[in-house]
């Protein structure tokens, strides 16, 4: 169980989850090919997955572990965010920490870069859509105070 939580901590975005899916498929296929498993485990997968699988385990045990991990990854919940700037790893860390603490521990992010929103964020989760962008706020200001602005 500790292994699971460690691996989930490390998977923060949809891209990272997809990469892990690919690695799981690679190991699953190698399980049934003689002599390939060792090569795959040593050279073709990330340290995260390698640590999770462990060393010297029987093929049946590895297969069971991979199935469990896949199920866990399937159960992660996606938050879609549109940002006006190109995010860094620290930005992702900050956002994910906040959302996992306040929303759900199973959150991962799907981030889109959209510079025309100027600033702020568009947030989508389980069918809920919230727009907290500067562009929208500015539009509201101009819409409501248009007459006032022109009289200045």
């Amino acid at each position: 169980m500790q292994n699971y939580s460690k691996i989930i901590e490390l998977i923060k975005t949809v891209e990272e989850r997809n990469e892990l899916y690919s690695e799981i498929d690679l190991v699953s296929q190698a399980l049934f090919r003689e002599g390939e498993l060792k090569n795959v485990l040593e050279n073709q997968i990330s340290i995260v997955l390698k640590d999770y699988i462990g060393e010297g385990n029987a093929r049946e045990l590895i297969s069971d572990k991979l199935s469990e991990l896949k199920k866990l990854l399937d159960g992660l919940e996606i938050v879609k965010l549109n940002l006006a700037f190109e995010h860094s790893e620290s930005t992702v860390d900050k956002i994910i920490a906040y959302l996992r603490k306040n929303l759900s521990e199973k959150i991962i992010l799907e981030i889109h870069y959209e510079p025309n929103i100027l600033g702020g964020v568009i947030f989508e989760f389980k069918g809920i859509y919230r727009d907290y962008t500067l562009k929208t706020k500015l539009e509201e200001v101009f819409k409501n105070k248009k007459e006032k602005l022109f009289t200045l």
Partner: protein
Amino acid sequence: MAEIFLTYTLLTSIFLLSGVLIIVVQYLFNSLKKNHMYQKDIDRISKDILNHNQEMIDHARLKAQEIIATASEKANEIISNTETFSADIQMSTDQVVSEIKESQKQEFNKARDLLLNQYKTFLEEIYKDNINLFKSVSKDIEEAAVSEIKSFRSVLEKETLESQKIVGEKIEGEYRQAEQEIEDFKNKELARLHDNFYKITQRAIELAIGKSLDRGLHEDLVMDGLKEAIEKGAD
């Protein structure tokens, strides 16, 4: 002893068999003779039948020739009779036609003269009547014309006034419509001008804000947005 008996028996058998053979040969000979006679009879009868047939055909041909000759003669006779009859009819018909023509011509001439006279009389009468009629009508026409002219003058005066009124109203309506159109156009152009000005101003502010925000400010805005979303119930 036995040999003598056998020889005797053999000779006897040969004798008997020879007798039987002679009888069979005699019978065969007779049969052939009869057959020959029958064949002769058949040939003779066939010949007779053929001759008889030929005779019948010849007889029929002669009979047919006779019938055709008689028929031809009869036909010629009928045709010559018909021609004679037609010539007679033609003659009598021509005579009748010429007589009818003459009689019709006379009748037509009489009828034409009669009609001409009647027509002449009729025209003279009409002429007299018309002169009288024109004399009485010309007065009526004069009165009617005077009255028509009076009524036309009054209608014309009335219509002129009405037309002037209608034209006046129409000009006024069109003037009002043109005035409204100018007002609408003015408002529309002003709104467009305002809108463009608004857009330019908004874009300028957007550009200014976009350039002025650094990563830290961006992150703060994002975090503020997320807090607000969760507070408003995103889960």
